[in-house]
Each structure stands twice: as structure tokens, then as C-alpha cells.
């Protein structure tokens, strides 16, 4: 960790850290990890939570970008290549999503079909890079056999292969690994100013904890602006004109359904001719996505009813059952696409670019613009290479070889379930999220068998996992736990688990139980708002019941009066290594009576 190379080309400076990374998305945490692995002292600031923005609200695919083959074949190749690397460093986080692309009968449909076939043949060249299968040409009958729910006048189709991933887990894995390599991560902490000396070089950042209001200053030699769609705002904090780090923010939304409606992802065409899809994603189906220029508040991005209808209408043309399906949530994020004035959103390049602001008179300040989930590692590598040149550090990038936390060994979830008397589904989901680190959570359960209790029965999430993500993955609130474990994001909408999760988070963090209840309410309310854009007829009824249940259990009114700031995290800096587990409050009670272990004895004596 401390094998910091001498800065040959720079004056050695006495700074608190070498690099400050602003932004806890996949690029920010990717750079923090890479830089920390190459021996730099890193601090990462994130004003909300890891994966709060586009990274946690993406389509959940590290696809090769077949869409970009036409305009940006280099993006397609880079995406495919890096998709292969991500598979080797985090095998537990990936799952195969086979796609079918039906071709509608319209003018020149057969010519079009042949062209599409040829197009995917071109895409096949990149498939080996990401261990994907080649495309297949399918007849209408074959398509209907694969997906009986397909409708419409179809002349045929092709299948191709992509990989799904949980973007939030990918971010968290990168951030945790960065911390384990010595980085410091400040969540819920915003950078208010990037200070520069008289020569324009970066000297420090001023930051403020959004919950406590405490400010601080950290001296540094370099600042990486990895704040995605926030990039121009962040650049302005360093005294640069916002357009020096200009992006074209494109809002995209997804709708999640309560189960896997199809086994294949299916492409569909929107009313304005865009390609969208319905994909089976873990235990849900997801449809997406829109791409609209966004001019609003980046901290308050939500899907609205118009966007939902635009998507469902298009999917319903090929898969009408979507209209009867039960939507359980929507997600929304804003892509930081490279700036160009004029082209439609879809025609914009998905390429990425590292901007060295030395050319704008701010040496040591860098902006990461553009990019996509699939190429985050490559982008982070390019950024860190730049930092290495800046510091004269000759360490090589290892992020494509060194496994992410949990990715070092393959764990068999079913064996794990048998050995530890867990439910097979619980075990499978646990291993998906944590890979080999599931063992650490199982260890907790061995020490405290009570923690095997399910907090969220939908996902499912055990109590031990909630405690683990609070202690070791920097979760501070119920919202953070949900982002890391999908707790409460399933079909019950958190009605059964949010309050319990709040209690656990409050206990782990030494907050009062009332804070836990308040956190639960905040989560429930935000999640309900995201869901209500997509409500169908039966769901409106369930939603009314949900509102009534919440009024009765927790009181909706008190939620509205609560200050959201108060509900945010209290501690600004979290470091996995130094995060001491808070002592569990000792029980005031003694074991009464003759029964030693009531539950065990009851089961033994049981007449049933």
C-alpha cells in the first residue's frame, strides 16, 4: 500500500493524499481502485451514495454495444474486450442474457433481415472477446417457439448474446477494493471547492459532510472529476468554465417487473424508431430505455408517467403481455455522453475521454467524460495511466487481472446451502452478490445463528448480510442497504422489511431506533414514488393498501415532516479497515427458569 513511487517528474509535495476522486460511480470507484493499487494515496468523495447515479440505474448489462457498431466500432470492440476482463475479475456478478431481435414485416423486410443478419455477423467477430455465442438466424416459428408471448407480423429474427451485471454491486466491489488498498472513501460528502495555487495547479479540496454540516480541507496534488453528468458542475468548483468539462446529459429510465416474463431479452422499436428491449434480469424483467436530453436537478431524477407509457407502448407491440404485468419499480439515471450539439440523443458517441485541464491552466485537474458501464475498467485504466504520468509513477495496471472482492474463487451456492442449512434461493442470491465473500457472511451466522433470519423475504436478504454491508460496504441508510442488496426492491415494495432493516442499520451505526424508523420511511416513500409512475389497475389497488398499511404502521405524516438531511448518514468517512464494529448492547435480561434453549427443546419435545 505504501510503496509509493517517487514523483520523478514532480516536486515531492507534502500533501494529505496524492489523488482526490470526485464521484462514487463506477468510473470514480474504478479509478480509486486502480490508483490505490498502483500505490497512490487516494480519497474518494461522493455526495450521495456509491452507484447513486447512472451506474446504479443502468440497464444492468455490460453489453458489447451492438448499437454502436455502426457509428463507433471502436467502442464496440473496447466494450467487448473489457466485458471479457470484467468476467474474469468478478465472475460471480455476471449472468448471461440471450437476446432475440425480431424483424417486423414492413417494406423491404426481407432485405432488411438480410442486412441485419450481416450486421450481426460483423458483431460475431467481437463475441469471443467477451465469451459470447455467435448469432443465429431464426424463422418466425422458431422465434415463437422460444418466446410464445411474441406477437406481431414477424418475418424472422436473429439471436445474440450479452452479459448482465448488477451495476451497484460492481461499484461497491470497486470501492471496497480501493479501501482495502488504502483509499479513503467519504460518502454523503460533497466537495465544495477545488483550490488551486497562483500557477493554477491543484492544491486541495474543501468538502462538507451533508448530514453533519462539518467541513474540512484535504490537500492533494491531483483531482479526478469522475462525477458523470455532474462533471461540468464539478469542474466549475475548480474555477474552470463549466464547458471545459462539458457533457450532454441524457436521461434514461427503466421499468422493473415482478418476475421474469421472458427467458430471452427481446428488442422492440419505439414509435420514433429507437431500439429498446425487455430483458430478463436476475429475478425480474426490465424494460428500457429512454434517452432524452436532461436539464433538471441531477439529485432528483425520477421516471415519469410519460416515459413509462412510451416504453410500454413499444414493448406491447411485440410482447403485449407487458400491459398485464406487474411493475414493481422504475429507475432513472442520467448518462454523461460526450458533448455534441445537433445530433439526436441516440446518435451520440458512447466513447469516453480523459480531459487534462492543464491545457486550461489547471494542472493536476482531470475530468472523465462519457463512457459506459461495460468500459469502466478501461476508462479507469486510461485515467490512472494519466495520473501515473503526472506523478512519474511507473506501476502497471493490474485491475484486469486482480480479482474484485468476492471474485477470487467460485462458490457453489447449493453446497453452501446444504452445509449451512440455508434455503437454496437465499444462498444463490447471497453468492451472486458476494461471491467468495459469502463465506464471511456465513461466518457471522455461525457466530450468531439468529442472524440467518430473513429481513427481506422477496430478494431474499438475511440479517447477517444487512449487518455485513453496513460494516464492510459503507452502507449508512436503508436506501444504501437496498442499493447493495436489492432489499425491499422486490414485489412487496419494502412493506415487510424496511422497518426491520432500519432497526438493524440504526443498531449497527449506534443511532437511535427512531432514526431507523425515519430511514425506513424515507426509503418506502422514495421507492413508492418511483413505482407510482408505472402503476396498472390492480396495482393501484395494492398501492392504496400499501399507503393505508404505512399510515397504520408508521404514520405517513411524520415522514413528510422529517427533514431528509436528518435521515442522511452521520458519519462522513468510512474505511472498511478501521471501521470497528459497534459493541452490541448487552441484554439486561437473564435466562430464566429451567429451560436452557427453549426453541431447541420445543422442537425435540414436539408432538408434531
Amino acid at each position: 500500500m505504501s510503496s509509493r513511487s517517487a514523483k520523478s517528474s514532480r516536486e515531492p509535495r507534502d500533501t494529505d493524499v496524492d489523488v482526490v476522486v470526485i464521484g462514487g460511480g463506477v468510473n470514480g470507484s474504478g479509478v480509486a481502485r486502480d490508483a490505490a493499487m498502483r500505490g497512490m494515496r487516494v480519497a474518494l468523495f461522493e455526495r450521495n451514495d456509491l452507484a447513486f447515479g447512472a451506474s446504479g440505474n443502468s440497464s444492468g448489462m455490460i453489453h458489447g454495444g451492438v448499437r454502436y457498431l455502426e457509428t463507433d466500432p471502436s467502442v464496440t470492440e473496447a466494450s467487448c474486450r473489457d466485458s471479457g476482463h470484467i468476467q474474469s475479475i468478478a465472475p460471480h456478478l455476471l449472468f448471461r442474457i440471450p437476446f432475440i431481435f425480431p424483424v417486423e414485416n414492413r417494406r423491404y423486410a426481407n432485405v432488411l433481415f438480410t442486412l441485419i443478419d450481416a450486421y450481426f455477423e460483423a458483431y460475431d467477430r467481437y463475441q469471443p472477446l467477451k465469451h459470447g455465442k455467435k448469432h443465429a438466424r431464426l424463422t418466425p416459428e422458431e422465434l415463437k417457439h422460444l418466446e410464445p408471448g411474441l406477437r406481431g407480423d414477424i418475418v424472422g429474427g436473429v439471436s445474440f448474446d450479452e452479459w448482465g451485471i448488477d451495476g451497484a454491486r460492481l461499484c461497491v466491489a470497486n470501492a471496497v477494493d480501493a479501501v482495502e488498498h488504502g483509499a479513503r472513501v467519504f460518502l454523503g460528502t460533497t466537495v465544495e471547492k477545488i483550490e488551486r495555487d497562483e500557477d493554477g495547479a491543484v492544491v486541495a479540496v474543501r468538502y462538507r459532510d451533508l448530514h453533519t454540516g462539518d467541513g474540512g480541507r484535504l490537500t492533494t496534488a491531483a483531482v479526478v472529476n469522475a462525477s458523470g453528468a455532474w462533471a461540468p458542475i464539478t469542474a466549475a468548483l475548480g474555477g474552470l468554465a463549466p464547458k471545459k468539462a462539458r457533457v450532454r446529459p441524457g436521461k434514461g429510465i427503466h421499468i422493473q417487473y415482478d418476475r421474469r416474463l421472458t427467458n430471452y431479452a427481446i428488442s422492440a422499436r419505439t414509435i420514433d424508431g429507437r431500439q429498446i428491449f425487455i430483458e430478463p434480469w436476475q429475478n425480474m424483467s426490465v424494460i428500457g430505455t429512454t434517452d432524452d436530453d436532461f436539464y433538471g436537478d441531477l439529485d432528483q431524477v425520477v421516471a415519469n408517467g410519460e416515459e413509462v407509457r412510451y416504453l410500454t407502448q413499444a414493448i406491447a407491440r411485440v410482447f403485449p403481455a407487458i400491459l398485464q404485468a406487474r411493475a414493481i419499480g422504475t429507475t432513472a439515471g442520467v448518462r454523461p455522453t460526450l458533448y455534441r450539439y445537433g445530433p439526436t440523443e441516440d446518435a451520440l458517441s458512447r466513447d469516453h475521454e480523459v480531459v487534462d485541464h492543464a491545457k486550461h491552466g489547471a494542472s493536476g485537474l482531470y475530468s472523465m467524460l462519457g463512457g459506459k458501464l461495460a468500459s469502466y475498467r478501461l476508462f479507469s485504466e486510461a485515467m490512472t495511466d494519466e495520473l501515473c504520468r503526472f506523478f512519474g509513477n511507473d506501476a502497471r495496471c493490474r485491475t484486469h487481472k486482480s480479482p474484485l472482492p468476492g471474485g477470487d474463487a467460485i462458490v457453489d451456492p447449493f453446497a453452501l446451502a446444504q452445509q449451512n442449512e440455508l434455503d437454496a434461493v437465499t444462498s444463490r442470491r447471497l453468492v451472486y452478490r458476494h461471491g467468495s465473500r459469502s463465506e464471511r457472511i456465513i461466518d457471522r451466522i455461525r457466530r450468531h445463528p439468529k442472524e440467518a433470519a430473513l429481513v427481506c423475504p422477496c430478494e431474499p436478504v438475511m440479517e447477517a448480510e444487512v449487518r455485513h454491508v453496513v460494516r464492510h460496504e459503507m452502507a449508512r441508510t436503508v436506501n444504501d442497504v437496498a442499493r447493495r442488496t436489492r432489499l425491499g426492491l422486490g414485489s412487496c415494495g419494502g412493506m415487510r422489511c424496511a422497518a426491520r432493516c432500519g432497526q438493524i442499520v440504526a443498531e449497527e451505526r449506534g443511532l437511535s431506533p427512531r432514526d431507523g424508523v425515519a430511514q425506513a420511511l424515507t426509503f418506502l416513500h422514495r421507492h413508492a414514488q418511483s413505482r407510482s409512475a408505472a402503476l396498472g389497475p390492480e396495482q393501484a389497488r395494492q398501492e392504496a393498501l400499501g399507503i393505508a398499511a404505512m399510515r397504520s404502521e408508521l404514520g405517513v405524516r411524520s415522514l413528510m415532516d422529517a427533514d431528509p438531511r436528518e435521515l442522511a448518514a452521520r458519519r462522513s468517512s468510512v474505511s472498511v479497515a478501521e471501521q470497528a464494529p459497534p459493541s452490541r448492547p448487552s441484554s439486561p435480561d437473564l435466562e430464566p427458569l429451567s429451560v436452557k434453549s427453549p426453541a431447541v427443546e420445543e422442537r425435540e419435545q414436539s408432538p408434531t
Partner: protein
Amino acid sequence: MIATVTIIGGGIAGLAAAWGATQRGDKVNLVDGGAGASALTSGAVDETPWDTLLAASMQLGEPIRAAELPEEVLGFSAALGLWHLVPAEGEMALVVSGAGVVRPARGHDRAILDLARVPIGGTVIVPRLERAGWDADSMARTLSSDPRARDRGLTFEASSVTALRFADEWRIGDVDLAARHDEEARRVWLSEQLTQTLRFKRSRHRKADAFLMGPWLGAAAPQAEDLSARVGVPVGEVLSPVGGPAGSRFVAARDALLARCEVKPVRGKAVELQSEHGRVVLRVEPGGQLIAADRTLLAIGGLIGGGLVYGPPYRHEDDVPPSRQPIPFRLSLSAGVQLATCEKTGVAWNGPAPRRMGVVGSRHGPELDTTAWPHGDVMGGLESVGIACDGVWAAPGITVAGDARAGRPRTVLEAVRSGLAAAEASVS
């Protein structure tokens, strides 16, 4: 001459109306389409929404006293035999939700523990049981820090108590476990376990003034009073979750009361209501049975009960706005009444009149993303929509009671009151 009344809905409002009408000697037909909000009750009995009550008491700086209830509401409650209602001018009951929130209530299902009846400064024992979703330690911690519990100096203590008897009881549902306490032998056994704990505590000079159990004390009838009498200190439940035993106890008490009133419910879905020569004729599916009556009373519940339906037109495959759904909110049966919303809660008693609803401006329905959920004082669209009423009248020959009415608080006692009022209006 004996009047005939058709009551649509077997929830609390419909039951109160049926009881009120039979008291007056009317002939009652009650049509019940299945479980609604009343069958999903938490067991708390409110007159005013409790968060409104709490806000008022905070503003006044003193606890709110129970208001007087009309004679006939008390009469109905006594006939039902399910609730304990706080006497007028008395201190409000304090009940505990499953999430560990202490809140005031005008009354409660008799199985629910009322913290106001625990001596001030007392200790409430929360039994540690191996049941999913029941964590006595965090419950005790949460409750001990609750401001309303602290006001009374109450301490909550998690304690190992043997209360589960059979091996399957760690995982069976709340209602199933509650049903086991309908048996007297089981209650005797449980009271022995609780008494032992009490003796143990007292032998160590520790306090134990009440037991707070999960929603497990009776599925057919509330059994907490019997337990309390056997143990000698109050024993009671937390409020039920949605679909918990409080709802099944209501259904059992309802069926018993209807039997005593000699009302035989018609099981089925009311689909059409038509006025003919001063009488109203109701068609019930399946079967197409026709029921004629002098008056009809809609106690069909809001969206939860299914009496109101949200039907966004854009959901239709053929992409043509269907003729039957000109407005996204409609009744589950066709009848000549109008819908309305009320935008404010809390002030509903003497607040703005409900706003009548017409066809919405968008073919795609209203913007639920901004209107579905409550925001501050403003009620959410999903809970404020109902039938526009003038008093209890919605149309000639048609009265409305309970959650189906727009612009009224959706509480149990409000449903009772409006049910009784609608029954009375039906005979006049």
C-alpha cells in the same frame, strides 16, 4: 310497511348499516364480494386519523381526551363485542404497531395491548421467541425510546419466555398461531409460562407489569382478556399487519352479528344498479341474481375494498380508448353516481367540499407519479377518490357509507357512524 334495503359490502360500514337497519325492523339483503379493508384491519379503532390526532396534541401541548361517541355507535360496538372503546373524556388508548411505533387510538380490538392501562413507570416484557419477523430485542429498544412511551415512564424489556409450544411454530403464519390460542387448554399453558416468568422476575425484585406479544392471541375471538385475568397483569398484542389475525377476528365477529340479526349475506359481485319506478334493482354475478329494494346502500370501500377501480385506458392492447372507461377511476358496478376527490386530509371534518371528477385531460389517465402518494397535508389520489355525496345521499334511492365516500376520514368509527346514518336515511 316494511322497507327493503340492499346493502352492498360486508365490511365495517356495511355491517353497521345492516345492524342499524334490522334494529329498525327493515328487511336487509347484504351482498358481499370478499375481503376488503375491514378484513385487513390492524385492530386499532380510530375516529380521527391518528397522525392528525398526534399533530393536534403536539400543537396543544397536552394529550387529547376521547370525545363522546353517539349512543348508536356505542350500541353497535356492544353488539359486535369485538372492541374496547375508551370512555368519553378518558385518556386515549396507546397501541403499538408492528414496526415499534406507539400511537394513540380511540379504541382497539380487545386482543391489543393498551399501554395506557400499564401503570406509569411500569415495565413491559417483550418475549423473545424464535419467530421470523419477531425480534424482541430491537422491538424493546425501539419502544423504550418512543416519546409517548417515555412520557409514561414505560420500560420495555426483551426476555426469554417459553410461548411457542410446537416445533412448527417458528414458521407458521400469525393467523395460524393465533388460532391455536382460541383453545382454552393452550391459553392455560401459556398463562402458566407467563406466570412463571412473572414470579421469576419478582423473586429477583425486578418489575414486570405487562406482556407485549405479537399478533398471536386468537383468530376467532380476542383471547387477551382471558390471558390477562389468568396471569394477573395485562397481556396483549401489537397491532396486526395487513392480513393478520385482527382482520380474521373482525370477520368472525361480523358473521356472528349478521347471524344474530338474521341477515344472510349473498356472496357475489354487485355489477349493475338500476332505478325502476322508485325501486332500485341490483344484479349480482355470477348467476345474474336480481335483488330489488326500496333503497340501496353502497358500502363498497375505496380502492382497497375494490369498490372503486383505477383503469388507465392506455393499458388496452387494441390501443383504442374503450367506451366503458371514459374516466380512469370508476365504480366496480355501474350506478348513477358521481366520483369526487378530496385534496386535503386532517381538515376533512369541516374542510373543503370534495371536488367532482370528470373525464381527465389525458387519454392516458392522470399523472399518478405525482398524485398517487400523499404529500404533506395533501392526500394522495389513490386514497382520496370516492363517491360524491350530499350527506349520505349520492343519488335518489342510493346512499353511501364508509370509505366509498369522498372527502371523509377513512377510519373505523367514521365507517360505523356513516353506516348507521345511511341506514337511518334509508328508512326515512
